[in-house]
């Protein structure tokens, strides 16, 4: 079963990448932007048929490795 997770920086944590991408987009003429935040996206194929179990495994992965909980949040967005 495939599980997807998104890792984003916590709200108050500085996102240098997002900031510079924002400036570059501005410079290219995309003026209607108030903020850009960059994150990571994972697709993990888990050998597990029960969606809630698969989700739990990925959640555990996020907590232990994929996300740095000091500065990042994670969200399981999809299972299929």
């Amino acid at each position, binding site marked *: 079963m495939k599980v997807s997770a998104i890792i984003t920086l916590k709200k108050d944590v500085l996102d*240098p*990448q997002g900031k*510079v*991408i924002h400036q*570059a987009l501005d*410079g*290219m003429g995309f003026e209607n932007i108030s903020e850009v935040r*960059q994150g990571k996206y994972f697709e993990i194929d888990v050998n597990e048929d029960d969606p809630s179990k698969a989700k739990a495994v990925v959640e555990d992965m996020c907590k232990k490795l994929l996300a740095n909980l000091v500065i990042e949040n994670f969200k399981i967005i999809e299972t299929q």
Partner: protein
Amino acid sequence: MKSSVITFPGSNCDRDMDVALKKFGFNNKMVWHDDNELPKSDLVVLPGGFSYGDYLRCGSMASKSKIMQSVINFAKSGGLVMGICNGFQILVETGLVPGVLLRNKYLEFICKNVFVKLDNKENTYFKNLNKDVLEFHIAHNEGNYFCTKDQLKEIKDNNQIAIYYCNSEGKIEDQYNPNGSIKNIAGIFNKEKNVLGMMPHPERMIDQSLSGEDGSIFFKNLINNIK
């Protein structure tokens, strides 16, 4: 001979390149990334560094900066454009040379001397060089050259591979590949061979007190070829 070095906000090898070009006789000008006009030049250099912090993808935002349109036009009209390290990454992002530069295989920044084998001397950069193997210096996190099978065939057919990582005897083997580049590729040309992108820094090898002197050989030869 006139040269121009483009300074992006996060360039940090621009001065080193300026020093090297002047040492070997170029009349060099520094050009700010936000300028529109490129001064009259025989050679344009995109130096190493972290042009825009190297966020998103290395070189991606620099490739969209104002001066780059002039650089692209200059290259398309046959002008010599050389991209070193981050400059190579920028060239790749503009599409002037094919392929991409991924993160190093072992996910670590590498700073050390390497040997490179010249593959093609039918161009202004390497013509008349009496050596086939040069000792250069690398310092990068994203120098792992990659391209598709079709692209690889095309660049091989067109003799676009400029240099390979090798050992001091010129052997091109996996163990001498510092970053996982496909086929040990360290630098490539565009089809017309007037644009060269490479990861190694010849400008850090111009003095016996530094890492070595093979950079001097490269620059001396280059200015003679342009004259």
